[in-house]
């Protein structure tokens, strides 16, 4: 079983829709939770970074963490064609003296004009 599970999609929505992207994880030691956006042939770009359970909002993006259910979500309001990309969830835990980042496999999102 993978430590982090993420539906690969693709997820296709019309412009203006609310998008919900999700990840589940199995290790309760994860402390930090991130969402990255990756356009084709580009590196991952950090969108959201959270530490505790609850919601964090930044513009059209809301990240939600539920540690009790081991479940994280990213909501995109008023989705735009420019949001079409692969979204990677990631989470980190301490290992000895270092922090290791574990990624989900990514969900491909397509926002249709």
């Amino acid at each position, binding site marked *: 079983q993978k430590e982090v599970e993420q539906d*690969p999609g693709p997820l296709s929505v019309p412009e203006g829709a609310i998008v919900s992207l999700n990840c589940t994880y199995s290790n309760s030691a994860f402390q*930090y939770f*991130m969402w*990255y956006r990756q356009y084709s*042939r*580009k*590196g*991952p*770009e*950090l969108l959201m*970074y959270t530490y505790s359970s609850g919601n964090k909002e930044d513009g059209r993006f809301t990240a939600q963490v539920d540690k009790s259910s081991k479940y994280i979500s990213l909501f995109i309001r008023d989705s735009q064609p420019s949001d079409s990309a692969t979204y*990677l969830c990631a989470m*980190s835990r*301490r290992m000895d*003296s*270092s*922090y*290791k*980042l574990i*990624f*989900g*496999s*990514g969900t491909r999102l397509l926002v249709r004009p």
Partner: protein
Amino acid sequence: DAMVIQNPRYQVTQFGKPVTLSCSQTLNHNVMYWYQQKSSQAPKLLFHYYDKDFNNEADTPDNFQSRRPNTSFCFLDIRSPGLGDAAMYLCATSRRGRVNNQPQHFGDGTRLSIL
């Protein structure tokens, strides 16, 4: 205002011919990472440097090595590339404190092709 810069963006090499990929950063972060990402897969950590301390992942092949001559630069050396090493190689940086860890910031990667 690129902060993590990888060169070249595209690299073609021959089977078995050594190749070096480079990464530089303007963030003054103390940690630098190298990841391998194959098509439609999650990035896979190869190794990282915490300052000058090198940390290798247990499943990283011996074929892959790294150098960090100073804070700003880090290199990935592939001694004898095989066809299975064709992938996107991503460099990332972060600032690590004594009690917490900041998120990683990625470059745009080098796409490596093996002939």
